[in-house]
């Protein structure tokens, strides 16, 4: 019985950690446990959440995309330039989304056609797009018009727009991964690339699609971040790649491919990270302590995940005989 409870706890580790952190913060700060705060949390985490969804797709194929932050910056810089030049919002957003997909496709091209390691390709593209964006912005912060920021606070049938975007991205990604041939084939690739090739899966096409999706998600995340920040600074999008990876892995997605999910995994990971940060703000903690606490929690979550896997592996070890047979 106690063993079974332990296994349950281990299997649900991300969810339990989430509940535990939420409970602690609620006790420490009475303001924390409220609907408005919960909604706030979701709104604030929306940019990173969308980027993390794209990252989950990439991680499932045993790849990685380090260029997401730079894609956000490059797309954002172009969009800001267009907006400030008086072009319509629609055009700016379209350009930003187009940029994201285009940059993702370039990643895909280099990985699939030139057969380079994803780590290296996306690392290099991180430099390239950051350099490009610095050129576009002339290394200055670009302030967006006020009315643009209002998108972030606008509501659609009573629900803030970022939450609508957040929810739709998660719903679509979840359906794509669990219910479409495309999604299931991604899991297959992550499980064993060689087998996928032999089975005749459209490997190149799938990988292209994955990096394009990651670029697309980075662009959408970038738009959400812009509506919150109201400006494109040279630091825009920095470290998003690490935060997105951390969120996905916290939610149980493996860095080695084939294991993980956006729902509930990545969602929990994203909310956990955001909850920590806003919790610390509410507690009036020294802002310099945030990264330390966040790092500690990430480390703890990874430790939990590792020991969970070790214990589950131990348990699934084949038994030679069963106790009942011992007569």
């Amino acid at each position: 019985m106690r063993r079974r409870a332990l296994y349950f706890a281990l299997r649900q580790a991300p969810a339990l950690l989430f509940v535990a952190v939420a409970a602690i913060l609620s006790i420490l700060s009475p303001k924390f446990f409220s609907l408005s705060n919960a909604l706030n949390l979701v709104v604030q985490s929306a940019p990173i959440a969308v980027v993390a969804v794209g990252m989950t797709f990439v991680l499932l194929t045993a790849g990685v995309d380090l260029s997401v932050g730079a894609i956000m910056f490059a797309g954002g810089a172009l969009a800001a330039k267009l907006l400030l030049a008086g072009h319509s919002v629609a055009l700016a957003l379209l350009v930003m989304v187009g940029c994201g997909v285009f940059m993702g496709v370039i990643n895909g091209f280099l990985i699939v056609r030139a057969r380079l390691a994803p780590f290296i390709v996306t690392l290099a593209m991180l430099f390239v797009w950051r350099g490009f964006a610095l050129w576009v912005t002339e290394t200055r912060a670009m302030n967006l018009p006020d009315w643009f920021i209002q998108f972030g606070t606008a509501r659609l049938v009573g629900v803030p727009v970022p939450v609508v975007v957040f929810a739709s991205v998660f719903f679509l990604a979840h359906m794509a991964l669990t219910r479409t041939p495309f999604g299931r084939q991604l899991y297959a690739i992550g499980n064993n690339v060689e087998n996928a090739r032999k089975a005749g899966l459209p490997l190149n096409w799938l990988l292209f699609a994955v990096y394009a999706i990651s670029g697309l998600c980075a662009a959408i995340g970038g738009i959400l971040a812009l509506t919150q920040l109201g400006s494109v600074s040279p630091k825009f999008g920095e470290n998003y790649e690490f935060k997105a990876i951390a969120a996905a892995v916290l939610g149980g997605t493996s860095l080695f491919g084939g294991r993980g999910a956006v729902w509930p995994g990545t969602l929990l990971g994203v909310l956990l990270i955001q909850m920590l940060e806003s919790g610390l703000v509410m507690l009036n903690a020294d802002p310099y302590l945030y990264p330390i606490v966040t790092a500690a929690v990430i480390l703890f979550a990874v430790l939990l995940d590792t020991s969970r896997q070790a214990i589950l592996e131990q348990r699934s070890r084949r038994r030679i005989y069963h106790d009942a047979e011992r007569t």
Partner: protein
Amino acid sequence: MTQLLRRVLLSDYFVLGLSLLYVAAVAPFTPGFVSAENFTNILSALLPLLVVALGQTIVLITGGIDLSVTAVIGLSSIVGAMAMNHETGWLAQSPIAAPAGVMIMLLVGASVGALNGIAVAIARMPAFMVTLASMMGFSGLAVWLTHAKTINALPSGFTMLGGHTMITLAIVLVVGICVHVFLRRSLWGRWLYAVGHNSRASHISGVPVGGITFFAYVASGLLAAMASVLYTGQTETGSPVLGQNILLDVIGATVIGGTSLFGGKGKVVWTLFGVLFLKLVDNSLNLLNLSIFAITIAKGAVILLAAYLDSLRNRFVAA
């Protein structure tokens, strides 16, 4: 013909040749590139980076990765400066301030490395996540210590180590030779490669896999701290954000040199040439008065090119 191409591509000196070619190609357009003064500049930029990259090489050989090196550089820089500055330091004006300060800095690096090592080797956590978290945590700690302020007024005996190119060269030379001999000739060095190739087979063959892995991270932390001594000396300032932007340079240079991200492959000379190549490109772009964005883009292109050449090399081996 293909035989010749093969030999060129697979040679240890491939990246060195590439660097020389680059110098020859760029020199005519870049005033002041080929000059004693500029080469000294390149050298002083290259030396500390090489030390960090050597640590990274050791970790990559075991099949791991260490993203926390930049945090180590910042943290040990600020802790060292807190310890030995003339004004508020614990060792202020003490005659042993410089040597004790260096020891403290190395100790900081080794401790961070040890924590990474425990998490990876004993708790068996994935290296990428562990060192990512420790990068965030320890650079946060470094900033928190002085609330983002820098510290000046360091003892001259200390700043000399990184500020005087010839002394730096001597130090790095000794470190490089030690790491080289360690990797090529020593028992633990050979075991590092075995662990990188196949840790299960190594374990069964009696190799202390946990100890070796732990050691690799400690060595990486230690070498990063050593680089921090040099960088801090160069700038004569203890700063918590020192080295913040060099992580991708470190990994890029190591991989350009030919060290594999999948373990089992790596050499000191490879990393030396990788760092050299990267710094040559960096320096020449600076001389051309290109803006920061062009330099950043060029760096990306160089990493891609190197990766492409590496994949060509691998295909040649396979063929």
